[in-house]
């Protein structure tokens, strides 16, 4: 597609439920990234996929968070047993090698 597509755009969930966030990167971009942005804050790195290499999971805040990328394209970020502190905007980005990031519009997650 023309841009990075994320779904859903908004998600309200009850504390303790699991959620899945989807990212569809720009076709041909080998790298895919997940970041988290809390209200008025900066961008917190979560996980990074590059081609067929093992993902860099060093930013995942706990073992409740996991992500996968299927077929080198679409990625899903899963948060299990959601907590209120998980509330944030989750941003996905993709890039070609040595290129700038193109960000999606994000998924606003609210845990109530």
């Amino acid at each position, binding site marked *: 597609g023309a841009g990075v597509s994320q779904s859903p755009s908004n998600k309200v969930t009850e504390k303790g439920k699991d959620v899945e966030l989807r990212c569809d990167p720009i076709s041909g971009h080998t790298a895919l990234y997940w970041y988290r942005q809390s209200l008025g804050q900066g961008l917190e790195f979560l996980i*990074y996929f590059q081609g067929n290499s093992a993902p860099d999971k060093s930013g995942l805040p706990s073992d409740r968070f996991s992500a996968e990328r299927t077929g080198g394209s679409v990625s899903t970020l899963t948060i299990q047993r959601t907590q209120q502190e998980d509330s944030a905007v989750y941003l996905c980005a993709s890039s070609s090698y040595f290129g700038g990031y193109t960000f999606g519009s994000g998924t606003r997650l609210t845990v109530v």
Partner: protein
Amino acid sequence: QQPVQSPQAVILREGEDAVINCSSSKALYSVHWYRQKHGEAPVFLMILLKGGEQKGHDKISASFNEKKQQSSLYLTASQLSYSGTYFCGTEEGKTGNTGKLIFGQGTTLQVKP
């Protein structure tokens, strides 16, 4: 290691200039700059690679001093459309084979008429 941006916020009148700085304690391979408007996703402005590169984008330019592990973003003759939060993203290391960025906390720029 999160890079440090300064200033945290700046208010300008249209036509004035501004400089935003980004400093890291780690050796850097590249620095990216992004602008985010309220309620929108960050938008890529430019990338600077190791080698003291300087780039320009309309009236926005940047420099990268890898020895000092610093980058600066220069906004010349600011326009209302320049308002937003500016983030630097740093790629650590000497060989630049990750592409993974750590972002600064952001600098909020407000341009008034």
